[in-house]
């Protein structure tokens, strides 16, 4: 994460902040007035029924979609209009709902791609000067790669070491030279997280990390996420359907329905919120159980 972001985070600005963010695809209001604040050490959840706009929110935060209204700030810096890779360099990493690993590359190489891509030394300076400096830095790197200079070789060794460490953390060392597509499902999920950590993020966005896992694997995942947050001093935001998992590890939950934020707060408080139950379990459940529990 670059020096500038460290400086602003040091001064207490939240790692990731979205306020009043809305997105419209033509007539469809995918997300309206979405706000969120993540500080270091937070472990927040983002839940909502299918099609509530959870993934859309994720995509806005990571720069895949541009918000029609409102602002997204990473480490205090406004990132509206930035490309996803620029936002990533500011310290925001993500995983994907349906796994998007580099299938033909080995597990090690998957992580090394993320580690290496931190080439941009001045991500916050997105003006023409910044771009020129980045381009120059990049061309110099290419020259070092082509001439196989000693400095380049040490950099490569360093990258491999970092990647191996991350694989170890995620318990994938035995899959080091295995192609990503050949890994079993659970391990592919963990490799995606390892890859995300490779970009040395400050905030980690997990898009349904427990999808397709059995209960025991989910329990292990809960422990792992909390451990990652502590070991890497991260802010973590998790999208998840599984109420038990979310309620288990998240200290703060935001609930979305049809693009609107219908509830926000601690797990216990959100669980009993009328609107949440109605959104999740539909009105019939409410009548049969006579209003709020």
């Amino acid at each position, binding site marked *: 994460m670059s020096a500038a972001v460290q400086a602003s985070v040091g001064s207490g600005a939240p790692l990731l902040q979205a306020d009043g963010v809305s997105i419209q695809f033509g007539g469809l209001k995918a997300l309206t007035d979405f706000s969120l604040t993540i500080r270091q050490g937070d472990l927040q959840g983002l839940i909502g029924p299918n099609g509530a706009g959870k993934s859309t929110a994720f995509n806005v935060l*990571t720069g*895949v979609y541009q918000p029609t209204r409102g602002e997204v700030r990473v480490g205090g810096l406004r990132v509206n209009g930035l*490309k*996803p*890779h620029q936002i*990533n*360099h500011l310290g925001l*990493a*993500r995983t*994907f709902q349906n796994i*998007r*690993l*580099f*299938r*033909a*590359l*080995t597990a*090690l*190489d998957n992580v*090394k*791609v*993320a580690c*290496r*891509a*931190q080439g*941009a030394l001045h991500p916050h300076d997105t003006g023409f000067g910044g771009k020129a400096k*980045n*381009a120059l830095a*990049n*061309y110099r*790197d*290419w020259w070092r*790669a*082509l*001439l*196989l*200079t*000693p400095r*380049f*070789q040490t*950099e*490569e*060794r360093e*990258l*491999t070491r970092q990647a191996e460490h991350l694989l170890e953390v995620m318990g994938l060392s035995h899959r080091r*030279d*295995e*192609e990503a597509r*050949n890994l079993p499902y659970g391990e592919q999920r963990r490799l995606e997280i390892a*890859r*995300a950590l*490779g*970009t040395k993020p400050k905030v980690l966005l997990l898009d349904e990390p427990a999808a397709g896992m059995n209960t025991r694997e989910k329990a292990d995942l809960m422990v792992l996420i909390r451990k990652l947050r502590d070991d890497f001093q991260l802010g973590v935001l998790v999208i998840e359907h599984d109420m038990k998992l979310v309620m288990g590890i998240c200290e703060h939950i935001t609930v979305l329905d049809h693009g609107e934020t219908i509830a926000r707060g601690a797990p216990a408080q959100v669980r009993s919120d009328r609107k949440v139950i109605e959104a999740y379990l539909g009105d019939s459940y409410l009548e049969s159980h006579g209003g709020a529990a």
Partner: protein
Amino acid sequence: MMETPALPVPEARSPIPASLRGIFPVLVALPVLALFQWLLSESPFAVYLLSVMGVNIILAVSLNIVNGMTGQFSIGHAGFMAVGAYISGVLSLNLKEVALSFLPVAASDQVLFTVALLVGGLAAAACGFLVGLPSLRLRGDYLAIVTLGFGEIIRVVVQNTDAFGRALGLSGIPQYSSPYMVYFWVFLVVLVARRIAGSSHGRSLWAIREDEVAAEAMGVDTTGYKVRSFVISSFFAGIAGGLFAHFVPIINPGSFTFVKSMEIVVMVVLGGLGSTTGAIVAAIFLTLLPEGLRSLFNALGTEGTLAQKVDQIRMPIYGLMLVALMLSRPQGLFGMREIWDVLPRWIPRRRRGLS
């Protein structure tokens, strides 16, 4: 399980000291090339054929960087080759009378030839940048048609400017090229392709090929990398064009049509998308095949009308052969792997991981 693609990591201790590792391959190559040149000097046909083969290898390996490693789809490579050929050709024509005072004439010719080559290559690289930048917002087939369009525009420009000899073409370009020069550049392009593939930049290109959205999310500046792969690939296409212009007696627009671009794409796909050695083997095979067919038919006797029509039959056979190859081995000769991954076990191979 499939063998992993050879993206070796140069971290294992290799006998050569780190500082020397960079230029060691070049030191080895120079004497080998000199021997190669001496062996060939008395047979002009071998010289010509191997020069054509060398140019095709450079074109295939350089296009492989864009079509193979980065997964983009360019069918305008002959356009960049034309830029290199004509720019270096015109430069050499004008420098024909000039020689460097401190060098013997032969040596100064080679120096000026190299300068002309580099200028041609840089011009092609600039065109690569021009074509690369705007069209990289486009996906697959649209990018293909823009590169195809670029190739056709270059052909029309050349056909209508007197300086480039219009339809007749540019002749009288000094024939400085020699197998030594051609294969020095073949060596360079293969070295560059291998070093890119083995480096983190290469991994970023592979990432773009595998899943561009994920690569962007993981911090890879996909547009920047695609433009760079375009620039490097078109630079070497320009060099190939320059070499071509200096051993073919005359260059005219007919040599750089979109059919030529397609032939290069065929070499890359035949060799296996992403495999540098695959591109080399395919380029060698597709250059020698027409001559082989000729020798075969000549052996069948020269009198009969079949012998007269023999050369006409080559092209349809070439077409049908492509179809057969694609049906039998769609992933190409080596798939994404290099030759040393595909060789059978009993051939001793270097320990894994050593670049």
